[in-house]
């Protein structure tokens, strides 16, 4: 059944680092800062652990948007993981854009453990932006 634009509910996969962004997501929960259930979080120790292969696979399997969230620059629990992530994903994001894949679908944000409200706001924003873009058909596999 084809997904119509009107009935379209985007799937957002968020890779969150354990120390900041996952804690921020927990804080959003503790303080009941709601966001759409379209967002599903995968917990990783650090944004530097996120392999671009995971992101591409998520898009292949039907994610309409992917977020990598980590500690703010300078705050990485592991000193430098997010700095490496910043370089890697700067390159990846430009490449996706260059290949004609909407860069809005792939976001990297810094969300600290005390930014529950920000986590929720980012999720709301990302979900709405991806909803406007419609389903990801460019990277999605045929299955």
């Amino acid at each position, binding site marked *: 059944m084809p997904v119509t634009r009107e009935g379209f509910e985007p799937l957002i996969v968020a890779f969150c680092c354990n120390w900041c962004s996952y804690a921020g997501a927990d804080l959003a929960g503790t303080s009941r800062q709601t966001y759409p259930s379209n967002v599903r979080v995968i917990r990783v120790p650090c944004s530097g652990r996120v392999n*671009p*292969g995971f992101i*591409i*696979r998520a898009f*292949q399997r039907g994610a309409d948007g992917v977020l990598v969230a980590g500690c703010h*620059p*300078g705050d990485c629990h592991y000193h*430098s993981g997010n*700095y*490496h992530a*910043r*370089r*890697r*994903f*700067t*390159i*990846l*994001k*430009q*490449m*996706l*854009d*260059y*290949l*004609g*894949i*909407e*860069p809005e679908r792939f*976001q*990297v*944000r*810094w969300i600290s453990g005390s930014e529950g409200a920000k986590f929720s706001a980012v999720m709301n924003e990302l979900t709405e932006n991806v909803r406007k873009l419609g389903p990801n058909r*460019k*990277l*999605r*596999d*045929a299955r």
Partner: protein
Amino acid sequence: MSTANGKIRSSAAEALAEGRVTLVLGWRKKDFWWQSPVAFVESAAEAEQLTFDPFSVYNPVKYLLEAAGCHEKVGVFVKGCDSRGINRLLQDKRLEREQVLIFGLPCSGMVDPVKIRAAFPAPKICEVARDGEELLVRLSDGQERVQTADFLLEKCLTCRHPNPVVYDRLLWERVPVRSGVDALRFARVSSVAQQQIQERYAYWTRQFSRCIRCFACRNTCPACNCRSCIFDQAEPRWLGKASDMSDTLNYQITRAFHVAGRCFECGECERICPAGIPLQELNRRLIMDIDKYFGPYEAGLAPGDLPPLGTYRGEDPAGFDES
């Protein structure tokens, strides 16, 4: 050219005869005028077949991975671009400097057979040889002279390092860097980048739709020098087997990402691609971004430094909305 051939033949023969190396990598002429593939020479006598002509475009460096394991010391002829491949292998710790005797060949550019064929569609081309600034094209019905510059490969027209950057012996005089190189280097990338996103997607999927997933681009690339490639692994399966656009994009994105900051622009991926996919264009896009975000960097110049994706600065700008 005959002096060039004389020099490489005598250099190789001498090194082999003296026992300084037991194998020399160069080029030899094969069946067609446009083919000068990599030659493996193990004796002074065999050195006579070595050729350096306008089609010695093949990068012999990738073969060092195998060769250096079987021979104590290998001689290798390198053009400017090839020499950066040596540094690539040194930086990747896939080669020790003492394992190779490097003969540097300053290179004024390789000729694109496609351009020659386009200029001489009808008669049979028998040989194309360099003669000073000109090319001597020997045809079945005579011969013609043309300006070399009009027939060079795109990668040679945009080459910033025609002279070897690492060598033990330089076989002849250095050549000047072609003028206007910097302007041309990113011209293809920029023209695609200026298109609308849907046009870019259409452009690239049109290119990639021809990809037969033969992995030749990976196999020939000196930067793709892993013992075991993730594309060949079963668990986790990073790359699906189906040859559809989704997995082709996965393959091409991952391949480009793995050479990001490491690609030294030898263009072998694009040359070898049987489907004619402009892979160098994608690689150059990444080089452009690395220059823009992390500061100018050229791979394969200094084997001691860290590639841009192996390091960071606290004040790096981000290529995404950091808010």
